Protein backbone atom coordinates (compact mmCIF):
# COMPACT_ATOMS: atom_id res chain seq x y z
CA UNK A 1 0.00 0.00 0.00
CA UNK A 2 2.74 2.50 0.94
CA UNK A 3 4.53 1.50 -2.27
CA UNK A 4 1.38 2.33 -4.22
CA UNK A 5 1.09 5.71 -2.47
CA UNK A 6 4.76 6.49 -3.11
CA UNK A 7 4.27 6.26 -6.93
CA UNK A 8 8.00 5.49 -7.37
CA UNK A 9 8.92 8.88 -5.99
CA UNK A 10 6.38 10.84 -8.03
CA UNK A 11 3.75 10.92 -5.27
CA UNK A 12 3.68 14.72 -4.93
CA UNK A 13 3.08 15.20 -8.66
CA UNK A 14 0.62 12.36 -9.23
CA UNK A 15 -1.53 12.92 -6.16
CA UNK A 16 -1.68 16.70 -6.47
CA UNK A 17 -2.73 16.42 -10.13
CA UNK A 18 -5.47 13.91 -9.22
CA UNK A 19 -6.59 16.04 -6.27
CA UNK A 20 -6.91 19.16 -8.45
CA UNK A 21 -8.86 17.26 -11.11
CA UNK A 22 -11.26 15.65 -8.62
CA UNK A 23 -11.63 18.94 -6.75
CA UNK A 24 -12.59 20.62 -10.02
CA UNK A 25 -15.23 17.97 -10.71
CA UNK A 26 -16.74 18.31 -7.22
CA UNK A 27 -16.63 22.11 -7.31
CA UNK A 28 -18.63 22.25 -10.56
CA UNK A 29 -21.36 19.99 -9.18
CA UNK A 30 -21.63 22.16 -6.07
CA UNK A 31 -21.69 25.41 -8.09
CA UNK A 32 -24.28 24.08 -10.56
CA UNK A 33 -26.61 22.99 -7.72
CA UNK A 34 -26.15 26.32 -5.99
CA UNK A 35 -26.99 28.22 -9.18
CA UNK A 36 -30.25 26.33 -9.62
CA UNK A 37 -31.18 26.91 -5.98
CA UNK A 38 -30.43 30.64 -6.28
CA UNK A 39 -32.31 30.98 -9.57
CA UNK A 40 -35.38 29.31 -8.10
CA UNK A 41 -35.28 31.47 -4.97
CA UNK A 42 -34.92 34.61 -7.08
CA UNK A 43 -37.82 33.61 -9.33
CA UNK A 44 -39.96 32.88 -6.28
CA UNK A 45 -39.26 36.34 -4.87
CA UNK A 46 -40.08 37.96 -8.23
CA UNK A 47 -43.37 36.06 -8.55
CA UNK A 48 -44.35 36.92 -4.97
CA UNK A 49 -43.65 40.60 -5.65
CA UNK A 50 -45.69 40.45 -8.86
CA UNK A 51 -48.66 39.01 -7.00
CA UNK A 52 -48.67 41.49 -4.11
CA UNK A 53 -48.66 44.63 -6.28
Amino acid at each position, binding site marked *: MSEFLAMNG*YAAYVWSAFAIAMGGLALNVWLARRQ*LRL*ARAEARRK*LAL*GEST
Partner: protein
Amino acid sequence: MNWVWFHRFGSPPYFYRFAGRWAPWFLGIAVALLLVGLYGGLAVAPVDYYQSDAFRIIYVHVPAAYLSLMTYTWMAIAAAVGLIWRIKIAHAVAAACAPAGASFTAVSLATGMIWGMPTWGTWWAWDPRLISQLFVLFFFLGYIALRGAIEDRDRADRASAVLAIVGVINVPIVHYSVEWWNSLHQAPTLLRSDGPTMPMSMAWPLLVMIGAYTFYFLAIMLMRARAEVVRRERGGAWLREILAAPEASP
Protein backbone atom coordinates in the same frame (compact mmCIF):
# COMPACT_ATOMS: atom_id res chain seq x y z
CA MET B 1 -37.42 13.41 -41.28
CA ASN B 2 -39.58 14.52 -38.40
CA TRP B 3 -38.09 17.43 -36.52
CA VAL B 4 -40.88 17.81 -33.95
CA TRP B 5 -38.81 16.09 -31.26
CA PHE B 6 -36.09 18.67 -31.74
CA HIS B 7 -38.36 21.71 -31.58
CA ARG B 8 -39.70 20.54 -28.23
CA PHE B 9 -36.35 21.46 -26.71
CA GLY B 10 -37.08 25.07 -27.56
CA SER B 11 -39.92 25.02 -25.03
CA PRO B 12 -38.66 26.12 -21.57
CA PRO B 13 -40.94 23.86 -19.48
CA TYR B 14 -40.15 20.83 -21.66
CA PHE B 15 -36.43 21.56 -21.48
CA TYR B 16 -36.52 22.17 -17.72
CA ARG B 17 -38.26 18.87 -17.05
CA PHE B 18 -36.17 16.94 -19.56
CA ALA B 19 -32.93 18.28 -18.07
CA GLY B 20 -34.15 17.61 -14.53
CA ARG B 21 -34.94 14.01 -15.42
CA TRP B 22 -31.64 13.23 -17.16
CA ALA B 23 -28.99 15.22 -15.25
CA PRO B 24 -28.94 12.88 -12.21
CA TRP B 25 -28.61 9.82 -14.47
CA PHE B 26 -25.74 11.35 -16.41
CA LEU B 27 -24.04 12.33 -13.16
CA GLY B 28 -24.53 8.81 -11.78
CA ILE B 29 -23.03 7.21 -14.91
CA ALA B 30 -20.14 9.70 -14.75
CA VAL B 31 -19.34 8.81 -11.12
CA ALA B 32 -19.49 5.06 -11.85
CA LEU B 33 -17.17 5.41 -14.86
CA LEU B 34 -14.91 7.73 -12.89
CA LEU B 35 -14.39 5.15 -10.13
CA VAL B 36 -13.51 2.47 -12.70
CA GLY B 37 -11.21 4.84 -14.59
CA LEU B 38 -9.41 6.03 -11.45
CA TYR B 39 -8.84 2.48 -10.26
CA GLY B 40 -7.64 1.43 -13.70
CA GLY B 41 -5.38 4.45 -14.15
CA LEU B 42 -3.84 4.45 -10.69
CA ALA B 43 -3.68 0.77 -9.82
CA VAL B 44 -4.10 -1.45 -12.89
CA ALA B 45 -2.26 0.27 -15.75
CA PRO B 46 1.43 -0.79 -15.90
CA VAL B 47 4.23 1.62 -15.02
CA ASP B 48 5.58 3.56 -18.02
CA TYR B 49 9.14 2.67 -19.10
CA TYR B 50 10.24 6.29 -19.66
CA GLN B 51 8.12 8.32 -17.24
CA SER B 52 7.62 5.78 -14.45
CA ASP B 53 4.49 6.58 -12.39
CA ALA B 54 4.49 10.26 -13.42
CA PHE B 55 2.74 9.21 -16.64
CA ARG B 56 -0.41 8.47 -14.59
CA ILE B 57 -1.16 12.19 -14.63
CA ILE B 58 -2.37 11.51 -18.20
CA TYR B 59 -5.57 10.02 -16.71
CA VAL B 60 -6.66 13.40 -15.36
CA HIS B 61 -4.80 15.75 -17.71
CA VAL B 62 -6.05 14.46 -21.08
CA PRO B 63 -9.73 14.14 -20.04
CA ALA B 64 -9.66 17.71 -18.63
CA ALA B 65 -8.10 19.06 -21.84
CA TYR B 66 -10.61 17.09 -23.93
CA LEU B 67 -13.48 18.39 -21.80
CA SER B 68 -12.19 21.94 -22.17
CA LEU B 69 -12.20 21.79 -25.97
CA MET B 70 -15.47 19.84 -26.18
CA THR B 71 -17.19 22.36 -23.90
CA TYR B 72 -15.88 25.24 -25.99
CA THR B 73 -17.07 23.67 -29.23
CA TRP B 74 -20.47 22.90 -27.74
CA MET B 75 -20.73 26.45 -26.39
CA ALA B 76 -19.90 27.93 -29.81
CA ILE B 77 -22.40 25.69 -31.61
CA ALA B 78 -25.16 26.52 -29.10
CA ALA B 79 -24.31 30.23 -29.38
CA ALA B 80 -24.46 30.05 -33.21
CA VAL B 81 -27.81 28.25 -33.10
CA GLY B 82 -29.11 30.90 -30.71
CA LEU B 83 -27.81 33.71 -32.88
CA ILE B 84 -29.07 32.36 -36.21
CA TRP B 85 -32.46 30.95 -35.22
CA ARG B 86 -33.04 33.19 -32.18
CA ILE B 87 -33.63 30.25 -29.88
CA LYS B 88 -33.44 31.32 -26.21
CA ILE B 89 -32.72 27.83 -24.91
CA ALA B 90 -29.65 27.67 -27.16
CA HIS B 91 -28.29 30.83 -25.54
CA ALA B 92 -29.07 29.37 -22.11
CA VAL B 93 -27.10 26.23 -23.01
CA ALA B 94 -24.16 28.30 -24.29
CA ALA B 95 -24.11 30.35 -21.08
CA ALA B 96 -24.32 27.13 -19.04
CA CYS B 97 -21.13 25.79 -20.67
CA ALA B 98 -18.78 28.65 -19.85
CA PRO B 99 -18.08 28.24 -16.10
CA ALA B 100 -17.46 24.49 -16.34
CA GLY B 101 -15.38 25.04 -19.49
CA ALA B 102 -13.24 27.69 -17.83
CA SER B 103 -12.62 25.54 -14.76
CA PHE B 104 -11.63 22.51 -16.84
CA THR B 105 -9.30 24.54 -19.01
CA ALA B 106 -7.67 25.72 -15.77
CA VAL B 107 -7.47 22.11 -14.50
CA SER B 108 -5.87 20.97 -17.79
CA LEU B 109 -3.27 23.73 -17.51
CA ALA B 110 -2.61 23.05 -13.82
CA THR B 111 -2.26 19.27 -14.24
CA GLY B 112 -0.12 19.90 -17.34
CA MET B 113 2.23 22.10 -15.31
CA ILE B 114 2.44 19.46 -12.59
CA TRP B 115 3.26 16.88 -15.27
CA GLY B 116 5.76 19.23 -16.90
CA MET B 117 8.02 19.50 -13.87
CA PRO B 118 9.08 15.83 -13.62
CA THR B 119 9.14 15.22 -17.41
CA TRP B 120 10.36 18.50 -18.93
CA GLY B 121 12.05 19.96 -15.86
CA THR B 122 9.91 23.09 -15.96
CA TRP B 123 6.40 24.12 -14.88
CA TRP B 124 5.78 26.24 -17.93
CA ALA B 125 7.18 26.82 -21.41
CA TRP B 126 6.04 29.33 -24.02
CA ASP B 127 5.11 26.52 -26.30
CA PRO B 128 2.42 26.53 -29.06
CA ARG B 129 0.21 23.95 -27.31
CA LEU B 130 0.42 25.69 -23.94
CA ILE B 131 -0.15 29.17 -25.36
CA SER B 132 -3.14 28.12 -27.48
CA GLN B 133 -4.70 26.31 -24.51
CA LEU B 134 -4.13 29.44 -22.39
CA PHE B 135 -6.10 31.34 -25.06
CA VAL B 136 -9.00 28.90 -24.61
CA LEU B 137 -9.05 29.93 -20.94
CA PHE B 138 -9.00 33.63 -21.93
CA PHE B 139 -11.92 33.11 -24.34
CA PHE B 140 -13.97 31.37 -21.64
CA LEU B 141 -13.19 34.11 -19.11
CA GLY B 142 -13.83 36.82 -21.72
CA TYR B 143 -17.18 35.24 -22.53
CA ILE B 144 -18.17 35.18 -18.84
CA ALA B 145 -16.95 38.77 -18.29
CA LEU B 146 -18.78 40.05 -21.38
CA ARG B 147 -22.05 38.45 -20.27
CA GLY B 148 -21.61 39.95 -16.82
CA ALA B 149 -20.91 43.41 -18.22
CA ILE B 150 -24.09 43.73 -20.31
CA GLU B 151 -27.26 44.36 -18.35
CA ASP B 152 -29.78 43.52 -21.08
CA ARG B 153 -30.01 39.73 -21.44
CA ASP B 154 -30.78 39.63 -25.16
CA ARG B 155 -27.89 41.93 -25.96
CA ALA B 156 -25.59 39.93 -23.68
CA ASP B 157 -26.67 36.74 -25.49
CA ARG B 158 -25.89 38.16 -28.92
CA ALA B 159 -22.58 39.83 -28.03
CA SER B 160 -21.25 36.82 -26.12
CA ALA B 161 -22.38 34.49 -28.94
CA VAL B 162 -20.21 36.41 -31.42
CA LEU B 163 -17.23 36.13 -29.07
CA ALA B 164 -17.82 32.38 -28.61
CA ILE B 165 -17.98 31.83 -32.38
CA VAL B 166 -14.82 33.85 -33.06
CA GLY B 167 -12.94 31.88 -30.39
CA VAL B 168 -13.82 28.50 -31.89
CA ILE B 169 -11.01 29.11 -34.44
CA ASN B 170 -8.68 28.38 -31.56
CA VAL B 171 -10.00 24.83 -31.00
CA PRO B 172 -8.37 23.18 -34.06
CA ILE B 173 -5.26 25.26 -33.41
CA VAL B 174 -4.94 23.70 -29.94
CA HIS B 175 -5.55 20.22 -31.30
CA TYR B 176 -3.09 20.42 -34.20
CA SER B 177 -0.51 22.66 -32.49
CA VAL B 178 1.67 19.68 -31.62
CA GLU B 179 1.69 18.55 -35.27
CA TRP B 180 1.99 21.94 -36.99
CA TRP B 181 4.77 23.35 -34.86
CA ASN B 182 7.79 21.93 -33.17
CA SER B 183 6.37 21.56 -29.68
CA LEU B 184 7.75 20.47 -26.36
CA HIS B 185 4.36 18.90 -25.72
CA GLN B 186 4.11 15.27 -26.74
CA ALA B 187 2.02 14.27 -29.75
CA PRO B 188 -1.35 12.58 -29.16
CA THR B 189 -1.03 8.93 -28.21
CA LEU B 190 -4.71 7.98 -28.25
CA LEU B 191 -6.90 10.28 -30.34
CA ARG B 192 -4.87 10.28 -33.55
CA SER B 193 -5.76 9.56 -37.16
CA ASP B 194 -3.48 6.51 -37.51
CA GLY B 195 -4.78 4.83 -34.36
CA PRO B 196 -3.50 4.84 -30.77
CA THR B 197 0.20 4.30 -30.11
CA MET B 198 -0.52 3.39 -26.50
CA PRO B 199 -0.83 -0.24 -25.43
CA MET B 200 -4.40 -1.23 -24.60
CA SER B 201 -3.47 -1.88 -20.94
CA MET B 202 -2.71 1.84 -20.61
CA ALA B 203 -5.36 3.12 -23.00
CA TRP B 204 -8.50 1.58 -21.53
CA PRO B 205 -8.55 3.59 -18.27
CA LEU B 206 -8.05 6.74 -20.34
CA LEU B 207 -10.99 5.85 -22.57
CA VAL B 208 -13.14 5.17 -19.49
CA MET B 209 -12.11 8.53 -17.99
CA ILE B 210 -12.98 10.32 -21.23
CA GLY B 211 -16.38 8.61 -21.16
CA ALA B 212 -16.86 9.67 -17.53
CA TYR B 213 -16.01 13.30 -18.35
CA THR B 214 -18.43 13.29 -21.30
CA PHE B 215 -21.35 12.20 -19.12
CA TYR B 216 -20.17 14.61 -16.43
CA PHE B 217 -20.23 17.47 -18.94
CA LEU B 218 -23.79 16.58 -20.02
CA ALA B 219 -24.95 16.55 -16.38
CA ILE B 220 -23.33 19.89 -15.45
CA MET B 221 -24.48 21.55 -18.68
CA LEU B 222 -28.10 20.44 -18.10
CA MET B 223 -28.02 21.47 -14.42
CA ARG B 224 -26.69 24.93 -15.25
CA ALA B 225 -29.00 25.37 -18.23
CA ARG B 226 -31.97 24.72 -15.93
CA ALA B 227 -30.90 27.63 -13.73
CA GLU B 228 -30.46 29.79 -16.85
CA VAL B 229 -33.94 28.88 -18.08
CA VAL B 230 -35.50 29.84 -14.73
CA ARG B 231 -33.59 33.14 -14.71
CA ARG B 232 -34.83 34.00 -18.22
CA GLU B 233 -38.48 33.41 -17.46
CA ARG B 234 -40.44 36.45 -16.33
CA GLY B 235 -43.56 34.63 -15.25
CA GLY B 236 -45.90 32.06 -16.73
CA ALA B 237 -47.95 29.22 -15.37
CA TRP B 238 -45.26 26.58 -15.83
CA LEU B 239 -42.75 28.53 -13.75
CA ARG B 240 -45.25 28.87 -10.89
CA GLU B 241 -45.98 25.17 -11.10
CA ILE B 242 -42.29 24.27 -11.03
CA LEU B 243 -41.49 26.60 -8.15
CA ALA B 244 -44.41 25.27 -6.11
CA ALA B 245 -43.02 21.73 -6.33
CA PRO B 246 -39.94 20.89 -4.24
CA GLU B 247 -36.81 20.43 -6.30
CA ALA B 248 -35.43 16.90 -6.35
CA SER B 249 -31.73 17.64 -6.18
CA PRO B 250 -29.68 16.05 -8.95
